[in-house]
């Protein structure tokens, strides 16, 4: 015990042994010049990634079928966003870890009324044909049950037709086909991006509705797959092009490569993977942060003697042997 105390005091006390000249300002200046030159050199040689942003116009023009089908899902309430839960709506309770329902407890702080915010309001703010205006009026004046019946019937029919609305048999779909077609045309002309962002207002800096709508279709996901950005291919730390990405997120990304986190069907971990991974990473980070206070963990540097390499010359000069 006394030896420990002596050692602690020795480690904490100002160094009274041999010293050497060390020009800290000169070192920092030289380091700044060298690092700056390296940054300039890397920038000149490799530039930086900047794949163009996706737009609703691009989606509706290059894959109108998918955009159309996604619009129908938004109206039917069968899209991922419509069933998401907090913080957007109360359609589900969200993820949990045992008794911890943090997503639910945090509440709906960013309410998004999916059919209205993503489809009906943009249509209401647009110049429509007489037929489209009539369809919109029909939709608005119908009961919620009627709206759901029309949209879900049409959504099921499109799904049965493998997503191709052009080959769907006739049915009681109400105004839904006209509304979906109208929004597809608006998107193809490039108006939907700003309609979703500002919603008729002047200022807005919140892209939540756009991102949610994008995520409900295949356009964004397909682009991410093509760029190798999906979570199960280390996508959280990858980025477009041949650039290093956020390599420092490896400890977070790694859990999305291994079971049970990779199996969404497996309960409770796989089906709540996003929540479990957060907690795992939080625990590991806390472990590293509080290493000095954790017996055993804090002894690793003494047990694995890499320090003998770091202070090799000092140990040799002072003839200090490793203590077991």
């Amino acid at each position: 015990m006394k030896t420990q105390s002596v050692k602690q005091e020795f480690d904490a006390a100002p160094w009274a042994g041999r010293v050497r000249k060390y020009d800290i300002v000169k070192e920092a200046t030289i380091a700044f010049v060298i690092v700056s030159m390296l940054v300039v050199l890397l920038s000149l040689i490799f530039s930086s990634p900047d794949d163009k942003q996706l737009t609703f116009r691009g989606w509706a023009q290059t894959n109108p079928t998918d955009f159309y089908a996604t619009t129908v899902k938004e109206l039917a309430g069968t899209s991922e966003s419509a069933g998401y839960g907090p913080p957007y709506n109360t359609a589900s309770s969200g993820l949990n870890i045992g008794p911890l329902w943090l997503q639910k407890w945090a509440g709906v702080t960013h309410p998004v009324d999916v059919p209205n915010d993503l489809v009906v309001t943009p249509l209401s703010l647009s110049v429509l044909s007489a037929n489209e205006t009539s369809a919109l009026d029909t939709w608005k004046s119908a009961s919620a049950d009627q709206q759901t019946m029309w949209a879900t019937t049409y959504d099921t029919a499109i799904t049965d037709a493998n997503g191709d609305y052009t080959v769907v048999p006739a049915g009681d779909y109400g105004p839904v086909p006209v509304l979906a077609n109208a929004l597809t045309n608006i998107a193809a002309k490039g108006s939907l991006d700003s309609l979703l962002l500002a919603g008729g207002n002047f200022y807005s800096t919140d892209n939540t509705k756009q991102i949610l709508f994008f995520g409900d279709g295949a356009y964004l996901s397909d682009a991410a797959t093509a760029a190798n950005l999906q979570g199960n291919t280390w996508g959280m730390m990858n980025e477009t092009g041949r650039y290093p990405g956020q390599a420092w997120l490896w400890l977070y990304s790694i859990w999305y490569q291994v079971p049970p986190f990779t199996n969404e069907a497996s309960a409770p971990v796989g089906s709540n993977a996003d929540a479990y991974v957060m907690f795992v990473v939080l625990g590991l980070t806390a472990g590293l942060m509080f290493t000095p206070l954790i017996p055993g963990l804090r002894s690793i540097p003494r047990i694995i003697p890499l320090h003998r390499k770091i202070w090799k010359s000092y140990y040799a000069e002072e003839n200090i042997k490793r203590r077991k």
Partner: protein
Amino acid sequence: MITETQTPEDSKMWTARLRNSWQRNLPIDKLLPDTQPAYVASWIYVFGVLTLVAFVDILISGLILAFAGPAWYHTSSLGLFVNSLHFWGVQLFFVFMVVHLWGKFWMAAWRGRRTATWITGMVAFLASIGTAFTGYLIQTNFDAQWIAFEAKDGFNAVGVGAFFTPTNIGQIMLIHVALLPLVLGVITVMHVLMVRKRGVVPPIDALPGNEAL
């Protein structure tokens, strides 16, 4: 110490106490030493200062990008170059910081009442990850769209998404440009001052009794 112009009561003033505490713990020769212990003789010691200068590089390029706006680099070749300076500054910053972190781990650099130094270093590391992450979110390109879409699920899953919204570029912009650099700057200053106060940790085995680890 009380000078001729001071009364004894002056030493009880908050200002005088702060000054005296500063002078006692961090005199200028500790703050800007021109010698180091003989054992400070490895390349591993360079990575702390390399991290600091990379941070300065990032702040400079970031300041230019902040004035020009987040979409500037999409249409200007000069903007793309400055964005590249920012990008590669961040990449080097993390390489230096991670080497510094693991170097300090294997030195058990928390010994000798340096626990707070280690913890502030870790907090700086986490703040850096947050700053880089928010930087990726405000690129206003495809990468940013995809990261926002994916990241929202992680934050929402643990309730954080109710307050921190990766899909809200206005919020993320302010956090990236104002809040996190300030937090990182303050923590870094605290970390460096702690290092200067305690000095560089002596080698393991330098004295008998290293069971204290």
